[in-house]
């Protein structure tokens, strides 16, 4: 008796729970939901609003008509759009491999659902648009501008252009950035290396030559200084200096003692040799 009542009660409870389960939708904080009534979108839940704090969003429990309405969940978070590296040809015919990425968010889930259905297909479409935009925009630049901070402006141009296309899919491009910009491997990279190498060689040669120059100047200055010191001192009596210096030279020259000297008696040294001559 009690048993039957209990089972009956349980069944009713289960039925109620089931009904509740199909008529209530639990929308998480990082999702937005579209409620479709027989395939036609009738409402959106927890769509993205700027400056909305978590906890005050539309996330949570939502009622819907069971069996007639169903829900589709669309990501609410900022998603990544990673495109394969693009080879960009600058106006001066130099190649650069550009690896860019973008971040986007779905701001109009109904539009997005109607046009591409899934986030994956949206990302595919957007990356196609983005890569062609990047090629076009960066291809219209000179190579040195591609490397320069001026690039910031072309990134903005790209972002604006892609954004216009993205709005048609209900998405918003938040940021377009270049992750890498490299010289293509092979000849361009080798050429860059060669240029760097020759620049270094030039630098090394310049440094050595400058060192030699400086050294020479130092020597010359020292010589000049010495000459000045000598002149100052010896200039006091040039005649005595030449005598003094000659004496020094004689000492040095004949120091070895293996020379032969032929002397005339009229030599100053031998003046007294012959005794006093009539003079």
């Amino acid at each position, binding site marked *: 008796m009690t048993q039957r009542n209990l089972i009956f009660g349980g069944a009713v409870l289960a039925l109620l729970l089931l009904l509740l389960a199909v008529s209530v939708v639990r929308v998480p904080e990082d999702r937005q939901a579209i409620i479709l009534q027989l395939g036609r979108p009738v409402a959106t839940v927890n769509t993205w609003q700027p400056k909305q704090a978590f906890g005050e969003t539309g996330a949570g429990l939502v009622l819907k008509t069971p069996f007639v309405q169903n829900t589709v969940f669309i990501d609410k978070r900022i998603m990544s759009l990673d495109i394969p590296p693009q080879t960009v040809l600058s106006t001066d015919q130099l190649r650069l491999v550009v690896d860019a990425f973008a971040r986007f968010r779905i701001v109009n889930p109904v539009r997005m659902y109607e046009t591409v259905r899934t986030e994956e297909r949206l990302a595919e479409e957007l990356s196609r648009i983005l890569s062609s935009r990047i090629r076009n925009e960066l291809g219209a630049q000179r190579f040195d501008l591609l490397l320069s901070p001026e690039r910031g402006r072309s990134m903005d141009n790209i972002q604006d252009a892609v954004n216009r296309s993205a709005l048609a899919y209900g998405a918003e491009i938040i940021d377009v950035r270049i992750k890498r910009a490299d*010289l293509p491997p092979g000849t361009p990279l080798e050429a860059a290396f060669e240029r760097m190498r020759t620049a270094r060689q030039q630098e090394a040669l310049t440094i050595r030559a400058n060192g030699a120059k*400086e050294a020479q100047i130092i020597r010359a200055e020292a010589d000049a200084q010495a000459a000045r010191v000598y002149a100052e*001192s010896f200039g006091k009596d040039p005649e005595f200096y030449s005598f003094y210096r000659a004496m020094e030279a004689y000492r040095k*020259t004949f120091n070895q003692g293996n020379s032969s000297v032929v002397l005339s008696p009229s030599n100053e040294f031998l003046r007294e040799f012959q005794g006093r001559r009539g003079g």
Partner: protein
Amino acid sequence: MPWQNNEDGDGTGGDNGGEKRNPWSQSGGNPSGQQGKRGNEGKGDAPKAAGPRNPWGDAPRPRGPNGDDRPKSSGAPDFDEFIRRSQEKLRGLGGGQGPGGGGGGGRGRPNIPWGLIAGGLVVILLATTSAYQVGAGERAVVTRFGQFNVTNGPGFHLKLPAPIDQVTKIQFEDIRTDLIGTADGDAENLMITGDGNVINIAYAVRWRIRNAEDFLFQVADPSATVRDATESAMREVVGRSTLNNAIGPERASIAEQVRERVQEILDSYGAGVLIQGVDINKADPPGAVDEAFKDVSAAQQDAQQFLNQARAYAQQISAQAAGATASFDKVFEQYRLAPEVTRKRMYLETMESVLGKVDKTVIEAPGVQAYLPLPELRRTPAPAPEAGAAR
């Protein structure tokens, strides 16, 4: 392991078994049956209710790695009381089929109180999903029916039971490090500098979570976002720098600029991430041109060497000049006092010392041809130092 707890519970249940066996300990005796039932609830904590020991005491253990017992005692008595009472009730009802013994709950006996068992399970489910523990350095983000409710720090917390409140725990305080490029090995991470040169750079970004709910809900794949943003910011900053600055003096300031830039980018996404720092582990010229770069520093050494040699020469020359002039000055001072005598004396002394060592031939009369003893005439070349001294 819940199953070990289960055995414990069984053991204590056995002690009590003298008075009355309750259906819980019976099914506990048949682990497979118990397992099946518990599989339905999807919670491993159920056997806690089996033994007479405080079921609450063990409940949160599987959740936290460091089974700290203290926080559990807070708020426990209510549940404790509640569960004990429902246990009592169950025991009373289950007593009738005590002799059923090991056969357990598997058999469809007509007088098994299914409703009460189900009710008990629901109660246990509610009890065990109404509390959670947050470890040190963790944050728990609670969502109510999917909507963000609150973020809780470490400790023991109560919440509404499972289907209503859900808890996501994240390692909040962890500082994560992403390496980009390798500091050693052959793989090169090349990057173009503002002056069109190429450097090989390796760096790391250290970051942590600043805001748990932003981190969870704002950006899909936040760690890849951090990485992408860092690579992009590094490119941007290095692209503004020159080769020499990037590999040399400005490395630290580049790292700081990158950190600021990455933080800016991530803040613009609202990613809830704090960049602790960017470390440049390596910024070198690529291997292909490394030799040329080394030659530059060799050239700098060479130039320095030239200068040193020249300075040594200069020192030597000026010392020589100072010496020579000083000695001349001294002699000249004396010479001035008595020129004739001094001059004569110097001459004779010099001649004396010079001619004292050499072979001398004196030829008396002018016009006499002297046949010199040629073999003895060995001329010595003029000594080199004289040339130097003559300057």
